[in-house]
């Protein structure tokens, strides 16, 4: 699988799983779980394709993982800064840290397992 596609797939899947964990970490948000999962998947897809595109341009595991971490944190930041409309609480670290970790994992996946473009 090429790197952008792998990033997209991994970002989407991990985004969904990351959103679903809200059921465990914050059960009070259960009524909005669909919105949370879709939002999480959306940011996973966007971060994933960006990380995959970067991995195609820069073939370096360390830099790719760092970029993934940064992208994961960046995309999670708006959600982390927001206030939950139901509870009125801010879940900053609960969203930011796992989001950044997901980006890191996608960065690793695309660098390690993604196919490099063939030379023409």
């Amino acid at each position, binding site marked *: 699988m090429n790197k952008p596609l792998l990033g997209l797939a991994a970002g989407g899947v991990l985004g969904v799983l990351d959103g679903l*964990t809200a059921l*465990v*970490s*914050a059960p009070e948000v259960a009524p909005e779980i669909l919105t949370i999962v879709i939002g999480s998947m959306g940011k996973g897809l966007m971060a994933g394709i960006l990380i995959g595109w970067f991995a195609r341009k820069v073939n370096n595991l360390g830099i790719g993982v760092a970029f993934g971490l940064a992208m994961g944190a960046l995309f999670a930041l708006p959600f982390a800064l927001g206030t939950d409309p139901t509870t009125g609480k801010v879940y900053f*670290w*609960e969203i930011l*840290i*796992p989001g950044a*970790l*997901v980006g*890191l*994992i996608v960065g*690793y*996946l695309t660098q*390690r397992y993604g196919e490099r473009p063939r030379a023409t």
Partner: protein
Amino acid sequence: MTSLSDAAVRQLQATLELPDPGDRYEVREAIGRGGMGIVYLAFDHALGREVALKVVTGAGDSADLAARLSREAQVLARLEHPGIVAIYDVGVLADGRPFYVMRRVRGETFAHGAASRGRGEQLRLFLQVCDAVAFAHARGVIHRDITPRNVMVGEFGEVLVLDWGVARLMDAPRAVPTDPLPAPDAHAESSVSSIDRPATAPGAARTGDGVVIGTPGFMPPEQAGGAAREADQRADVFGLGATLRDVLSANGTALPRPLAAIIRRATEGLPADRYPSATALAADVRRWLDGVPVEAYRENVFERAARLYARNRPLVLLLFAYAVVRVIVLWWRGI
């Protein structure tokens, strides 16, 4: 009258015993000795380089030995491959014995050269041996004496398969070329080569009708039984397997089961039970290096899990770290 010392006499004797290949090559010293010939270090004045020069020994049936040296030269000439020592020239000494000239190889035998390396590097060197042998098979040549002593590891990690003196030509199994080598032409280009390697392993037997060919421990049963002329490429697969076992077990550590199974299959008693070719053997070794299942071994579910973990360790650890973070977040909120 002044008398010569013993050392001086020995020096003089050794110099007199050096072969005379003509003006182009200056023979310096013997560097290897085998069942049929001696390899000398020589200097090629025309090209200004050191080479190796192989000459048959004067002992035994010299006509037969000369024929075999000629055949070895012809076999080497067929095999232009980076993993097979290159032949440069052939000729006849002043005393009528044929010689051939080849590249001088600097390095260690596979047995010594691989000993200080890790298993992965040993296997990668072994794959180079397999490539060279597979190339020879594709050219219709069976080596029949693959041992760690007949493989050299050069200074830069290059691998060279040597000693093709008992090789069999598959397309002409019984029509061994016996034409003598051409007489050297004083004006023609010639070449010399030498090999920095020990003499052929003790116990190695030599070719001939009904005579066992090969090295004990490295030759397959069909060859040990005297049917060397029937040996096909699976005989070399046996030698490769035995060589791999010898090199990998040198430090005494137990081999992983898949690797042991690869060696076992390569050295099966019946040729039909072995890998069909050196390429197939190399492919299985390559699978092991790549962390995928090998053909020779059926792994159980635990071994499969362990292999997958070993192959994807960073990813597994990252996912584990993610799960740990999730648990920590949960715990933190619960405080």
